[in-house]
């Protein structure tokens, strides 16, 4: 199996001198294609920062991130944007849907930004799987938290990315809905052969993963 995500001596520091915070500190990590990895750690341990660095949302202080065999530091901003919309799907804790677009439009947004024609059958299939088929025309503010998170997941997988990065996707949800969302993510990953990296506080979710990475003070401890 090939390595899809890799970090080499990855560091992200904030502040300087006494105020220096090492959010991510010399992290070396390899994630294989199709793998389900959970990242756990205390609040402030650097999990989210690591995920953002993996997805190219943040710039490292030093070190490298390799996506599908390419160092993203070599990418132009434009190439990075293209990589994000084609290869990476994000699920944020706070959903982050675009309020002026309806559910369908939110979901097909990355495809549209890529200038590609929407595979309607595929999107409908995702929406059906996620139980959103009747909410296509709803604006985000009319949805419940669970529905919004499911829309965000649909958006993350609609462009058939090879990697899905999810930052506490169940953090804002009740236990039942949370389990449901994780099950869906896993299902999708399996169905489309995607790599899944999930940050979570939830022990049960962590145990569902193929591998769990524990982070403490910016370092991988396990």
């Amino acid at each position, binding site marked *: 199996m090939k390595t899809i995500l890799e970090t080499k001596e990855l560091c992200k520091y904030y502040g300087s001198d006494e105020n220096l915070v090492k959010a991510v500190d010399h992290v070396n990590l390899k994630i294989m294609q199709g793998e389900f990895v959970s990242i756990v750690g205390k609040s402030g341990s650097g999990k989210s920062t690591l995920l*953002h660095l993996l*997805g190219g*949302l*943040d*710039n490292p202080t030093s070190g490298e991130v390799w996506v599908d065999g390419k160092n993203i530091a070599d990418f132009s*901003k*434009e190439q990075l*944007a*293209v990589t*994000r*919309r*084609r290869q990476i*799907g*994000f699920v*944020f804790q*706070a959903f*982050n*849907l*675009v*309020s*002026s*677009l*309806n559910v*369908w*439009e939110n979901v*097909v*947004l*990355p*495809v*549209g*930004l*890529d*200038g590609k*024609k*929407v595979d*309607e059958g595929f999107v409908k299939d995702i929406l059906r799987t996620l139980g959103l088929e009747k909410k296509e*025309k*709803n*604006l*985000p*503010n*009319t949805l419940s938290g669970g529905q919004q998170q499911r829309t965000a997941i649909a*958006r993350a997988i609609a*462009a058939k990315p090879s990697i899905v990065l999810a930052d506490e996707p169940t953090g804002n949800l009740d236990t039942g809905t949370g389990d449901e969302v994780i099950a869906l993510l896993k299902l999708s990953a399996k169905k489309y052969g995607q790599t899944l990296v999930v940050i979570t506080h939830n022990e049960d979710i962590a145990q569902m993963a193929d591998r769990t990475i524990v982070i403490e003070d910016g370092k991988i401890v396990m």
Partner: protein
Amino acid sequence: MTTIKNLAISRLRFNKSRTILTAIAIMLTTTLLMGVGTSAEGILNINRQQALFNGNTHAMFKSLTQEQVKKLQNHKDVESIEINELFATVEYGKMNGFLVFHDVVKEGIYHGVGNLIEGHEAQKMDEICGPKSFFERIGVEPVIGNKIHISFRPGGKGRIETREFTICGILSENDVPGFDVSDTRIAYGASVSEALANAYIPDKERSYNTNIRVVGENRLNCDEIEKVINETAADVGCDKVNIILNREYLIMQTEMGTETKAVVAGISLIIILFSGLVIYSIYYVSVITDVQEIGKLKALGASDRQIKRLFLTEGFRISFFAVPFGLVFGYLIPYFALPVIFKEAMKVNTVADEVDRLHMFSAPVLALVVAAVFVTVYLSLIRPMKMAAKVSPVEAIRYQESSRRRKMRKGNKNVNVFRLSAANLVQNRRRTLVTMLTMGFSCVLFMSLAGTMNSMSTLDMARRNIKEGDFRLTLDYACNDKEYPENNLDQLSMRNLFSDAFVESILQIDGVQGVEREGGVLIGSDFSNELFEDGGRISLSWFEREDVKEYEDGMKAGKIDYDSMVSGNGVILTTVFYEMYGMLPGTVIPVTVYDGDRQFTMDVRIDAVSPVGGDHLLLLPREVYERLNLQYDSTVDLYISIDQNKYEEVKDALTEIADAEAYFRLYSMDEEMAMGRMSVSLIKYPMYLVLALVAVIGFMNLVNTMITSVITRKRELGVLQAVGLSESQLTKMLVGEGAIFTAGTLAASVTIGNLFGYLVFLKAKSTGFMSISRYHYPVVETIGLTVALILGQIAITYFIRHRIRKESLIDTIRCSE
């Protein structure tokens, strides 16, 4: 109270961009009001100086008889009287000279020029008193005691007499105008003694132009004084058309009339309304974007009143900071600009004189402006404050714009960048609309004024003397010279001065491209009115089918139907006094045409009255004029068009031709334009300054909306980037949003703006403002506005994009978490 104050201050610091924008808008409003107030004060001041300098006459009654002057002398309302009688015209080459008899009947009137600076007034028959330039023009050194021979025609119509005079006094005069104007455009006058006037003009033929002052200048306002003057004129039997009010002086010296007050109040109200709308829109957008924040405060226990006070404190805090800057700029701009403008004007003005230091500062204006700005800020805050106070804590925390109104969106199967922009604007449609309206309003104001200003055309003014081409060589003819009939047009036409050979010789001048002729012929009539009295004659010319529009534009009565005029000998009458002359549309007038030594009769029918100017009182359709088969060439004007590169050479050649023939007069485009420019520049440039400020304030509004729109959507924009929106797509999206604002604004300005512009033009035309006669579409202004809007909007977009770029993506996404 301190908590609210502290909160307000920290909010101002936190929302830095918004604070700066609001401050700039308030500052510009203050600048605008202060600038207008200060300019008004300055213009009033210069006019007052000018009016005082020009003299303190209230009015002039023209053409009074000795009887009427006597009546005036005994009139209870008349304080001072001074009479002037045109005694004779001076016959000295082409000199535009005249002799007057001047007398003070009741003391109290003074003048800016024409005052005795040396010697004494003319008392004896052979004495003359005048300005130095008069004597110099005749070639005599202006020294008291010098002898001078002058040929003159008493009353401008008698036989030419030549007498020897002794210079007895020197009168003050204006400096020779600073721009090159041909000598024939300058009038030279001198005064002679009563004895001389009595010797030449019989008592019953005396006609005096009488300057008067009425009693009560200190207690009556302008309108009331005007009433007294009119009543006095009626009492002595002076016709209304013969009253010339010294309006500049009356307006400056008396209490402002109600009409003037209304105009000033109207302009101020428009400015206040406009600035209020802009400030309102800025706060309106702030409240909408601040709802969550307000909700949090309310959830923490802030009362409605405290929320209102929070906004009010913010508004006033910014005002305290911004108003002083505005006051300083508003004072300084006219302080430096006005003198420059006046100086320019004085260079070309033939009457203006050295003006003392301008006094522009006025404490009442300052106080009024400060009050007006604070009231404006308060008024524009009322609704946003109410909206803020109404926000409920729960709703606020959940708040997303338009959440109550819209649940569903039809949407599109595919999403692209343009649809993304459109979705945002539609979602925030109220904000979009308010911005478009205020932007639109400022542009409408801009376009309305631009239309009128553009119609204040120098060219139009110049074209009144030179209808086409670059030069006009005209025949200086008389209609009714009984003593010297050779001066009359009928006799002159027999001399064939504008012969084909002559016109050919003009065409031969290097640089001349074409010559157009215009004809005119004298007519007399038995029709009973002042014009034809005692064998009086007027001139008749032609107009063409393509001129109809122009005459229709200025039409006062009747109708122009070219074909029916051709078949029925219809004429256009070009005087406003058509009622006085009894020449109403429909009247048929039997006329005698004086074609050299030949005469014939015909009937003409008055079809329309259109006083658009020109030398001829009646105009026939060209076909009819040609059918008259005149025996002699009736050309009175040659319009000469030339190659602009040879202007000076042609002008020299034409001047030489004009100088060689006593009856020729030359008008040249450069001189006419110079005179037009002076009158236009006085009004046009200050108005452009006001317009520029209006445009800037309106633009601030667009900046505000776009920046707020981006700041509040920062996270959303971050998310869009996270899911793959590239930088170029982001730019495209922002440009798209701006383009929609720009398009909306432009649509409003070119439709409503031009419509209003045309209405303002019509109003200006009907009131005779700056002699505007023709509407000129403001092409340059429209293009300028379009370019400025597009460039400005692109600049804002790049500025915003630059700001977003500075932060890392994740910071943008996190910003409101």
